[in-house]
């Protein structure tokens, strides 16, 4: 077994795989909804080491991947305005919009900066009172408290040259949309540990009851992922559908109440477009009315932007488990991490990019061009 010694505790990994083999009698499809988990699964070959009755489906767990093309084009338009300092997390910089990326805007003279923390963007606004500082606030529930604090702090400190372009997404409505889909193939879910460290596990109980689908809150390290899979398989084989927490060292039932409180003050729930999937009702956050003065979309009029996705790209089917990345015609040909066509190739945590990075040399044929 080629990957087993790459686990930090190969003996425990072996035992977990053996346990899973022992209990599996039927075919099951399990979806992880965390880019960190997807990455660990592909990198450590967990999907290949599992017995072939168990299929892992890599869900929409990467916020960079699901940010719609139109949102990126809006960011590019705002970043190109004079007197704007546009701040973003590093992994958004190379995500292509319809015809360029933030990196290119910078090389064309735009002031685009990578920040580590959203509070760095607030600081930039304080230091540059004659500029408009805009922060690209993307992410799941894990990132929302940080982004909420930047807006809260700006308001508290009376900073008027700061605003945020918000594209926040929420995990539970996405899970619901996936199980509700007519042809859904998913039998059980690994929920994202870090999302739950903020939100707690209480949101998932009603989902489990309503859809009779097992959900196991799981960490992102390889052994955590294996333990999560083991627990889902046991539930499925025993005909149970329950909420379990396999990541108790980080996740509690109530979550981080301080973070939830500020998020609820700064944001309100809204419908949201997911790249590759489409609009999911009540699946995002936008600024609440009391904070709307910080909304970059209202502050800067960049016109209506509606960007069609590439026709070649099948990332929606990848995200819902209908095909594997390498079954897409464009995989490794027209579409590579350097020139991504779709949601799941743009970030290293996306399923197509993870396949490209770790599976390319593994019997999956791709053309490797000079550039990428």
């Amino acid at each position, binding site marked *: 077994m080629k990957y087993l010694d790459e686990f930090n505790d190969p003996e425990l990994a072996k035992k977990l795989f053996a346990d899973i083999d022992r209990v599996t009698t039927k075919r099951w499809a399990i979806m992880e909804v965390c880019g960190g988990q997807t990455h660990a699964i592909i990198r450590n070959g967990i999907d290949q080491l599992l017995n072939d009755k168990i299929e892992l489906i890599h869900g929409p767990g990467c916020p960079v991947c699901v940010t719609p093309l139109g949102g990126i084009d809006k960011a590019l338009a705002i970043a190109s305005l004079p007197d704007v300092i546009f701040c973003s997390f590093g992994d958004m910089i190379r995500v292509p919009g319809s015809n360029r990326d933030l990196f290119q805007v910078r090389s064309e003279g735009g002031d685009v900066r990578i920040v580590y923390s959203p509070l760095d963007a607030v600081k930039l606004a304080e230091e540059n009172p004659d500029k408009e500082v805009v922060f690209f606030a993307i992410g799941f529930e894990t*990132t929302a408290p940080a982004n909420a604090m930047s807006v809260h702090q700006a308001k508290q400190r009376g900073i008027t040259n700061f605003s945020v372009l918000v594209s926040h997404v929420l995990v539970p409505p996405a899970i619901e949309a996936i199980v509700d889909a007519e042809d859904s193939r998913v039998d059980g879910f690994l929920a994202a540990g870090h999302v739950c460290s903020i939100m707690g596990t209480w949101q998932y109980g009603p989902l489990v009851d309503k859809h009779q689908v097992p959900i196991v809150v799981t960490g992102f390290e390889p052994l955590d992922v294996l333990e999560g899979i083991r627990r889902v398989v046991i539930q499925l084989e025993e005909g149970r559908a329950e909420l379990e927490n396999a990541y108790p060292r980080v996740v509690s039932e109530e979550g981080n109440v301080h973070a939830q409180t500020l998020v609820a003050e700064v944001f309100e729930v809204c419908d949201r477009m997911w790249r590759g999937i489409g609009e999911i009702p009540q699946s995002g956050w936008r600024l609440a009315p009391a904070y709307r003065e910080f909304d970059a979309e209202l502050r800067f009029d960049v016109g209506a932007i509606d960007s069609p996705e590439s026709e070649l790209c099948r990332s929606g089917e990848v995200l819902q488990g209908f095909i594997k990345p390498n079954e897409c015609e464009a995989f490794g040909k027209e579409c590579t991490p350097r020139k991504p066509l779709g949601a799941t190739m743009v970030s290293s945590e996306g399923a197509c990019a993870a396949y490209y990075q770790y599976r390319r040399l593994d019997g999956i044929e791709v053309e490797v061009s000079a550039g990428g």
Partner: protein
Amino acid sequence: MCLAVPGKVMDVRDDRGTRMATVNFDGIEKEICLAYLPDIAVGEYVIVHVGFAISRLDEDSAMETLAMFRELGILEEELGVESSEAGAAS
């Protein structure tokens, strides 16, 4: 940016009403906001995501997770540190 990295709280201070800390991640130090973990003390381990401590963690788990980040060579990337900067800090 999906991930969260464990680190040790080295000092705690107040920045105009916001609780901030210096957190050490296996040799790399960063300014981290403690607003969401107000009762954390110096010497404890926390999980940090985009500059915010989001959860407490015991030392052993923190060490294991940090070792994994190091091994994968993604610690600097997750902390948004340019590699030259990281070299100087460690």
